[in-house]
């Protein structure tokens, strides 16, 4: 915390972690936008190979979306618990968030196994394969990073190191998680709705 903000209530500035996270999410938005643009640009332009409508089946990604978007809700519940200094409740909702995120990754992995093994779609097959694996993979990478940090916080909570004093910092991680979920909405619409 800036040492100025507690000398008087007439000069308070935002928490620096918040400003930093906003900056990070701002730049990540720009980064993801480029991959979405590339995906949309190449829709329908593959010269050969499987087409999206042929190989993209909806049930798995819909299930994965439900898992991921629910985890946004559970992380909100976890943060409420932490702000109320209920570390036990926080730990439980935090774990549920992790499990929901992990199941998102598992479902994505299952879909990829089917696409590669059964449908013969790889990143090198055609433009659809190239853009699909890159966009979805980039998002999955961000989910993985988020899950790693969530797991880290979970372990620290179990060891008793996390309480209400860390609420603001932990909230920044939850903002990252919400961002990842928001990006998934865009990715889902791009790949499974518009691009199909």
């Amino acid at each position, binding site marked *: 915390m800036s040492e100025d903000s507690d000398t008087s209530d007439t000069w308070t500035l935002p928490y620096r972690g918040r*400003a*930093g996270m906003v*900056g990070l999410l701002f730049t990540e938005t*720009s*980064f993801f936008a480029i991959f979405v643009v590339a995906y949309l640009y190449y829709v329908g332009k593959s010269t050969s190979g499987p087409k999206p409508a042929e190989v993209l089946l909806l049930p798995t990604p819909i299930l994965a979306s439900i898992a991921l978007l629910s985890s946004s809700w559970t992380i909100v519940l976890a943060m409420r618990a932490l702000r109320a200094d209920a570390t036990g409740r926080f730990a439980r909702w935090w774990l549920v968030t992790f499990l929901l995120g992990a199941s998102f990754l598992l479902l994505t992995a299952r879909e990829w196994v089917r696409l590669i093994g059964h449908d013969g779609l*790889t990143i090198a097959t055609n433009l659809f394969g190239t853009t699909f694996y890159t966009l979805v993979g980039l998002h999955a990478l961000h989910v993985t990073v988020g899950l790693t940090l969530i797991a880290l916080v979970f372990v620290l909570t179990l060891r008793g190191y996390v309480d209400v004093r860390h609420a603001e910092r932990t909230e920044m991680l939850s903002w990252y998680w919400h961002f990842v979920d928001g990006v998934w909405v865009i990715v889902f619409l791009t790949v499974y709705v518009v691009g199909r």
Partner: protein
Amino acid sequence: MGVLDRTVPAAEPVAEAPSLVTRLHGWVVTVDHKRLGIMYIVSGILFLLVAGSMATTIRLQLVVPNNHLVPPQVFNRLMTMHGTTMIFLVAIPILFGFGNYLIPLMLGARDLAFPRLNAFGFWLFLFGALLLYFSYLAGDGLSGAGSAPDVGWFAYAPLTERPFSRGSSTDYWILGIALAGIGTTATAINLLATAASMRCRGMTLGRMPLFVWLMLTSSAQLLIALPPLTAAQVMLLLDRFLGAHFFDTQAGGSAVLWQHFFWLFGHPEVYVLVLPAFGIASEIIPVFSRKPIFGYPVMVAASVGIGLISISVWAHHMFAVGMSPAANSFFIASSFMVAVPTGIKIFNWLATMWGGKIRFTTPMLFCIAFLFQFLCAGLTGVMLAVAPFNWQLTDSYFVVAHFHYVIVGAIVFNIFAGIYYWFPKMTGRMMSERLGRWHFWLMVIGFNLTFGPQHIAGMLGMPRRIYTYEAGRGWEIWNQLSTLGALFQAAAILVFAWNAIVSLRRGAVAGNDPWDAWTLEWSTTSPPPEYNFATLPEVRSRRPLWDLKHPDDPDGPYE
């Protein structure tokens, strides 16, 4: 307010001077924004010397037609590495180095918001830089056909795809720049967070020095503009290693998509570079005219406006690509739009000097040259915004002349101004005015002699990035003048390096405020202590030291 009256008593003298190893270790593990700022600047200057020698070699190769100083393969590597180094490893680190050093001081803070992230950013930048240069040794790759990258600094696809770019040289370009870019992104986030959350009491956004505003706009632009480059580089890497087809034209991929992504980065990038340069001028010109900056609110608005509009102009680098007339027209309009706030700033600087008492110190001389040279650069930019004229001028030496007038004439000249101006603050010693003048005049003559004639060579049909040319095209005299200028510039840089080294040892002691300036960095010692200020200041106007020096006539009521 007695901030200036109280100083922390000097620490007890240490029993023995710390060893060289201890001192070096201190620099390696530092998270102090001042030290990291100096490290950024010094790294940038070292790379300036390297890339400058490349430029001199290029000029010697081109001094006469059909020259054989270097073969085409070497020339193409030289021109690629010259451009890549100057943009990513010279301009960015030096300007962000200044931002690093000055922003906490100007805002009355003790350090940046995230000191360890700051250190991480620097070392990642340096690692990326060294990785790029490692390509000279290891770019051969498995097929033995590599060395340093030779695809031009904009690395157009599909020249960069595997079939046309063998070996690993392009991979080093991608990885080195991507990593350095992530380091810079970290610094940009850091600067923005610092300005958001660490300003001293009374320092509203409207009282921040213009340098800070410009540095922040530049940082925000970088956050938007660098990801397209990183994304495109990731795509290229996937093409080259995993057989993806992003830019593989044989599989339906688009070469023009690379250009769009690249210029979506590339154009805002040049504003990322020029805005901090404007910021430096906006600090120096008022002090040596003895007047406040004319029209601060409009200067801020113009700067932010430039930052926003510049994101919409990118395809003016692509007028020859064959876009539709409608698309070309959009980019003509947006490019002209960005010219308006840019021109306004020149008038504001002029009005700052108008009615003042101009002192021609070395920093001011460099700023004055910047004004004239940037006027030229802006006007040749206006010419390039006219698409049909652009169809003749693009990819010729006219463009080379234009952008060097911006990057050297505006940015490098302001960097020199900034170094002469803040060297006393950073080191406690003044640089030599006499050597400074030699540096200045050699640089002005050399720079204009090198890049002025290139406008003409371009209009006579000389394309860019050619390692040689035939006799009889009428290009000889312009190339000869250009090379002569390069020798003057080389001499200027040597004088500057000498000045810096000698002044470190034997320069006059600077004191807190050698220039009689008005922003907060001049309120503390030279160099500042690690904690910057004994007590964090409180400000009531844009020029806190003016208020202190003129208690009967403070700035506040007039702003």
